């Protein structure tokens, strides 16, 4: 067990393109750290630099206080689970798990003990004599984890371990990994592009974009206080709505109307001209399902519901709106960055499942402007962070 310190890590490829640019992250001993971002953001490269499969162009990588930049992977004592598991097909499950121990020349008795212990933990007892080729995806995944846990490694590294599993199994394995990590209390770095995994597993989450660290925070902080447009748009599903906004005094003007916002937020935005407002889908509600006495009618607006998706516990409604050309360009750019492609400018609102709004009909919606974020459209910076 050890902490992992990354100090100004840079990875440049032959063409000079920085795949990882000046990243500094401290992973505390026993912490579960997530690296998340859209494809090509450098998260896997960073992980591979920790384990030693990629050279570090500049910066320092410390594992347990020891600089490991120039150490070969085998000398770093880190265990890694690969995206495609990388099990040895010519060896049985038992031998796969025993492989690192045999390389370390442990005694036969110790190897047997450790393998049996790992197989018990991972429920692999009945499969020990089988070859990986005959196992299901979930079983292979567990063998790969078994090979990692027998090692007494200083840290676990996971490279998108669940992306090859179907949705149901992915959910099970996610809790399994969380439980295992808590029980073993071992430092873990976990790479994923799936924000559900990021939010549910991580003690802290590092959001990356194009090789640059955007924000390093707890899942809750990422969700409630994103530092910029990218993080705000990447974290959360359905994603945060971005709307063109102008602030005058304590009033914000959105495409649907003008609403009051807290003074503190208004002050930060004063004199900035056209801004981007961010509102999460759940910060809207159908007025008809709220207690009439509790509704601040100055924060409601009429909207034309285009499409409605009823999910049982909640429902999503889509409200298209017209945006000015320059704002539209910005929104497109943002959508591209977070790997989604929205074809139209529309508002996604999450409504109570009791709401009876109809498709292609008008509804009165409430907007919780207390929770609204204001972003500088030029820099993408969140002006209202911390409020």
């Amino acid at each position, binding site marked *: 067990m050890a902490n992992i310190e990354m100090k100004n890590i840079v990875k440049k490829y032959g063409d000079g393109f920085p795949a990882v640019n000046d990243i500094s992250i401290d992973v505390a001993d026993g912490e579960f750290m997530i690296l998340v971002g859209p494809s090509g953001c450098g998260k896997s490269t960073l992980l591979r630099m920790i384990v030693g499969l990629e050279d570090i162009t500049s910066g320092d990588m410390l594992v347990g206080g020891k600089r490991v930049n120039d150490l070969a992977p085998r000398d770093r004592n880190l*265990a890694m689970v690969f995206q*495609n*598991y990388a099990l040895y097909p010519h060896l049985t499950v038992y031998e796969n798990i025993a492989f690192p121990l045999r390389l370390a020349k442990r005694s036969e008795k110790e190897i047997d003990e450790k393998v049996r212990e790992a197989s018990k933990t991972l429920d692999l007892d009945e499969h020990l004599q089988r070859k990986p*080729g005959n196992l299901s*995806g979930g079983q*292979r995944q567990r063998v790969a984890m078994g090979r990692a846990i027998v*090692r007494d490694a200083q840290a676990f590294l996971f490279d998108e371990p669940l992306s090859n599993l179907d949705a149901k199994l992915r959910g099970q394995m996610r809790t399994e990994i969380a439980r295992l990590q808590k029980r073993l209390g071992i430092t873990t770095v976990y790479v994923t592009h799936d924000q559900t995994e990021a939010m549910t597993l991580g003690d802290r989450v590092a959001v990356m974009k194009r090789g640059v660290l955007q924000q390093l925070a707890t899942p809750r902080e990422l969700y409630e206080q994103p530092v910029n447009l990218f993080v705000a748009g990447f974290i959360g599903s359905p994603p945060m709505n971005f709307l063109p906004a102008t602030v005058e005094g304590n009033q914000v003007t959105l495409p649907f109307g003008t609403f009051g916002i807290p003074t503190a937020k208004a002050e930060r935005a004063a004199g900035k001209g056209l801004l981007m407002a961010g509102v999460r889908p759940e910060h809207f509600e159908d007025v008809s399902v709220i207690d009439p006495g509790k509704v601040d009618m100055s924060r409601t607006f009429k909207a034309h519901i285009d499409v409605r998706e009823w999910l049982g516990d909640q429902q999503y409604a889509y409200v298209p709106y017209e945006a000015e050309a320059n704002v539209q360009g910005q929104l497109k750019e943002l959508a591209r960055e977070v790997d989604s492609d929205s074809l139209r400018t529309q508002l996604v609102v999450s409504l109570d499942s009791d709401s009876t709004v109809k498709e292609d009909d008008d509804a009165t919606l409430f907007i919780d402007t207390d929770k609204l974020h204001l972003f500088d459209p030029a820099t993408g910076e969140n002006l209202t962070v911390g409020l």
Partner: protein
Amino acid sequence: MNRTKVGTGVGFAVILVWCLLPIVWILSLSFKPVQETTTGSPHFLPQTWTLQNYKDVLNNSDFTRALLNSTGIALIATALAVIFATLAAYAIARLEFRGKRLVLSLALAIAMFPVVSLVGPLFDLWRTFHLFNTWPGLIIPYMSFTLPLAIWTLSAFFREIPWEMEQAAQVDGATSWQAFRKVIVPLAAPGVFTAAILTFFFAWNEFVLAISLTSTTSARTVPAQLSFFVGSDEFNPPYSQLATASVVVTIPIVVLVLLFQRKIVAGLTSGAVKG
């Protein structure tokens, strides 16, 4: 469905007869007494069965010596070719280096070069280097001529093995050499065996170099030695003995194929990564 079954059966039979008839003929010849092969109207099966030919051939010290030469030369050439080819193919499949394409095209060029055109130069060269009529004198060209094919076969196999296998081994604590030996080579085993068999066949059956680069039985291999089976009368070669010798040299090949066939199991890598 029945008709296709019958068709397949008939097809098999035709092909089997076509391929095996010469072999049966040779087998039958090998059991005939010499007199029977020289009569005007030969029968397909021996009139009188005899093992005399086998006794004669195996008591012929020239032949047994040639058999020893063949075995030794073919085995050593195969071993060397497979070892070099494995290392070279691994480098070609895994490493980026200058001249990689050159190596591959050169290998191909060598494979396409007609062997006969090299006999003269090699003859002179080997006499100068005192390699004429020695084992190394045959092992070196056999190895060189089979290396290209072995390299191409093996590098295709290595390319199929996912990089992650090796990286996983390194993270698990293996040195590059251990990763190669314990993970990559076992996974490439079908390729290694294929290369080995092809090399062995070439060395075992080769005739032109064997006859040209040897002068005595100290290095002459069986195919070359067979051409010296002329017997007492040039115009009446001992066909039955020739046939017997052919049978004897074919046996190791058949055994080898049967042995390795089990090893050449396709799909050994299935299940290594996501199915």
